[in-house]
């Protein structure tokens, strides 16, 4: 809450400084968003080819004209997971929307460190370019899955195609991504703590800000560990060290010249990052869902305090549940029990959030804008994807389900599709603010309904495949008798995926049409309460065009009895007195 809004800089004039190397948090947020859009299309096309191979093994791939090889399939698995997790789920909800909106919502002119902010984006961009380059090197992209378990990832080319230069590029890319994410996380934390405008106390923050702030703290803890792990893995590969490689391995008929390392160390380091990462992907979506639901139910968020504490509880617990990925890893089975209890405990704040979203709808006035459709979809998907976590949290139940499509269904619904629905909700909600034009609601609604039904048709059957034992990351299952009933399900899922992906074209059309031709947006088209709706759409370079506004009330004052309108802006001075 400083008087000096540290991040003051003048509006740039040249094209390069305005749109490319911009210091403006809104431009940088949009840059992240567009990078994520490119990444999500790359990731989606990769998944289509995987789905093609699973449903119709041995057929020639469309457009490519050849039959897929096992190493190509595993490269798709690896790159789809990596691109989606890092360059979509981490990039858009946090760095994209967070950058665009957080400073305005807290009444700041920009992020605390604008130059660092620009660096974070361009570092992320370089990381993405390096990752994509892995497709084009000899022997192709890595095949170890997005978790790149050692020693498969540590042994180099002898462990298989793609494990040479492709794997090196993967490690370098993720290292760079970690650097970018750490810079971004620091910026978010400092901005939220120091640049809140007068009156914007912590308990008046919109839940989106709480989510971005908490996510940034998680990012700071998690990415630092992954960055270190990447260095160790690279040293094992090129420096002759043995952090993850024990003695006596025989690969390709030769005894490997390493000794003393532990493959489990990689898993501990990776999942110490990897589990918080799940919440890095989903917390901003939770914030967006809260913001959007409250706005379009015309009702204060149910249990604001409980929501804040739930976010914090999720964040704290998320740093101590990583072992639930390792129940079958050979880790001491006694620790499995501790990780199990901590993991089911994280279900409690997650359930609190769900109850509170329903409480927000209860006795509200639900308006079906496209943003709200996606927010409601988010809640449903979060429930469906979250509840299966209770299965996987118990070591004895995880045992038959581990590394099957049940797990694939679980995490795709909860951190994949739910998070994507959060992004769609955020896009439809803030597009008018970011670009000054409305998106087309009719196209948006059609896109939403196909997508909602489509994602359930894709991911719901995977649970049952997993119960039947369908393993993840299998190129072909034809040799297995116990999987004889699987092909029909694979085909149903793949056809659903093709239709759903095709329907995303509606979103692209809507996006470009709205950018060019969308109706001009007013300052506050959704009749929302938070500060970004007190400035023009799009906002001027320094957001408030002068002194920052003062905040007098909480973030979700809807349908206050006796008020002129059914919403009261946070910055509005006079409003009827009321009791909570």
């Amino acid at each position, binding site marked *: 809450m400083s008087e000096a809004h540290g991040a003051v800089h003048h509006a740039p004039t040249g094209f390069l400084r305005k749109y490319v190397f911009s210091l403006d948090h809104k431009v940088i947020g949009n840059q992240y968003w567009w990078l994520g859009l490119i990444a999500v299309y790359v990731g989606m096309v990769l998944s289509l080819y995987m789905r093609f191979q699973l449903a119709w093994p041995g057929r020639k791939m469309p457009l490519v004209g050849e039959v897929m090889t096992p190493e190509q399939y595993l490269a798709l698995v690896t790159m789809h997971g990596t691109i989606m997790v890092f360059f979509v789920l981490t990039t858009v909800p946090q760095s994209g929307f967070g950058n665009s909106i957080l400073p305005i919502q807290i009444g700041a002119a920009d992020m605390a460190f604008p130059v660092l902010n620009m660096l974070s984006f361009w570092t992320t961009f370089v990381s993405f370019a390096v990752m994509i380059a892995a497709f084009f090197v000899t022997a192709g992209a890595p095949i170890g899955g997005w978790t790149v378990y050692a020693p498969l990832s540590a042994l180099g080319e002898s462990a298989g195609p793609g494990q040479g230069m492709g794997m090196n590029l993967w490690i370098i890319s993720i290292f760079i991504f970690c650097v970018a994410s750490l810079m971004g996380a620091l910026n978010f934390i400092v901005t939220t703590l120091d640049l809140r405008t007068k009156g914007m106390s912590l308990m008046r923050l919109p839940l989106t800000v709480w989510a971005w702030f908490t996510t940034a703290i998680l990012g700071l803890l998690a990415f630092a560990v992954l960055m270190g792990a990447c260095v160790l893995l690279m040293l094992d590969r090129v420096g002759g060290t043995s952090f993850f490689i024990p003695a006596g391995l025989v690969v390709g008929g030769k005894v490997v010249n390493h000794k003393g390392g532990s493959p489990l160390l990689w898993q501990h380091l990776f999942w110490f990052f990897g589990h918080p990462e799940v919440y890095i992907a989903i917390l901003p979506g939770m914030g967006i869902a809260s913001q959007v639901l409250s706005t379009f139910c015309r*009702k204060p968020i149910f249990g604001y305090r409980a929501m804040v504490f739930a976010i914090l509880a999720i964040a704290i617990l998320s740093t101590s549940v990583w072992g639930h990925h390792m129940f079958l890893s050979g880790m001491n089975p006694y620790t*499995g029990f501790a990780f199990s209890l901590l993991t089911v405990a994280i279900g409690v704040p997650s359930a609190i959030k769900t109850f509170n979203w329903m409480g927000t709808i209860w006795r509200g006035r639900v308006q079906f804008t496209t943003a709200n459709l996606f927010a409601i979809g988010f809640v449903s998907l979060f429930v469906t994807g979250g509840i299966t976590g209770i299965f996987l949290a118990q070591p004895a139940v995880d045992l038959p389900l581990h590394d099957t499509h049940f797990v694939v269904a679980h995490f795709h619904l909860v951190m994949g599709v739910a998070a994507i629905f959060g992004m769609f909700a955020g896009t439809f909600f803030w597009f008018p603010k970011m670009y000054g034009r409305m998106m087309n609601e009719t196209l948006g609604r059609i896109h939403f309904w196909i997508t909602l039904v489509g994602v359930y048709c894709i991911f719901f059957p995977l649970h049952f495949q997993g119960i039947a034992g369908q393993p993840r990351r299998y190129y072909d299952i034809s040799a297995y008798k116990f999987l004889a009933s699987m092909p029909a399900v694979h085909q149903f899922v793949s056809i659903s995926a093709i239709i759903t992906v095709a329907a995303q074209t509606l979103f692209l059309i809507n996006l470009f049409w709205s950018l060019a031709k969308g109706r001009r947006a007013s300052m506050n088209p959704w009749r929302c309460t938070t500060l970004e709706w007190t400035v023009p759409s799009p906002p001027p370079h320094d957001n408030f065009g002068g002194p920052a506004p003062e905040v007098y009330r909480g973030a979700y004052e809807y349908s206050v009895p006796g008020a002129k309108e059914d919403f009261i802006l946070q910055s509005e001075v006079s409003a009827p007195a009321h009791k909570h």
Partner: protein
Amino acid sequence: MATDDERPSGSFGSALGFAVIFCGLAAVGTYLVVAKTWWFPESISTIAPAIDAQFDRTMLLSGIIFVLAQVALGLLIFRFRDRGQQATYSHGNTTLEIVWTAATAVIFVGLALAARSAWASLHFLGPDPGSMQIEVTGAQFEWQFRYPGPDGKFGSIDPKRISESAGNPLGLDLNEPAAKDDIVAREIAVPVNRPVELILRTKDVIHNFAVPQLRIKQDSVPGLAIRIHFTANKIGEYEVACMELCGLGHYKMRTTFRVLSDQDFDKWLKDNASK
């Protein structure tokens, strides 16, 4: 209330859409769980019923939560769709918050506690004394199974001695007495109703020994010898699958798992010893 900006229309249609889809989802989910068209393969081990029972308990409780949540969400949306009514100004209800927090905590933690005994009998209790030991070695992309032979002792192994061409895939010292009678096979067979202890090793990267019908699944980790135990109680021919990504041949790291009568098992062992 009208503004110059786009106002949503079709409130009834959207509300109905949600109600139908969320209730339909709950119905389809319930049907698929009850119908068991795609479900666990038959169980053939003494531990399997405990694991399946815990799965069923979890399915029952979380299934109820899932159905209630989806139906409630669908109905709430339908009931409170925009019909021009005034939304209620409320910031929540502390009693409700406490009740549902406590209820969820009890259900979730209770389930995790109930799951403890199945896990404990797998891992905290050792194998029955007199269990038959089999060493399982994973390698890109095949399995090797070693039986200790009549002396009941495994010979020592050394990766430097490994030679596929000399018929020594595990690196046994063939001059060592304990190693001479070791039986190495590419398939695994166990006698029915006899406790078995597996010692899982790997030559190269992480693999995972899984037999879905046994409800047994365990990573084999470079540098570690991991022990698991089970008793198979139904004669038949089943499959071993690798369940940890180990390279491009991961999908074909399959072999046969046989549960045999004592007689057939002895014969199987003899046949493999002579190979």
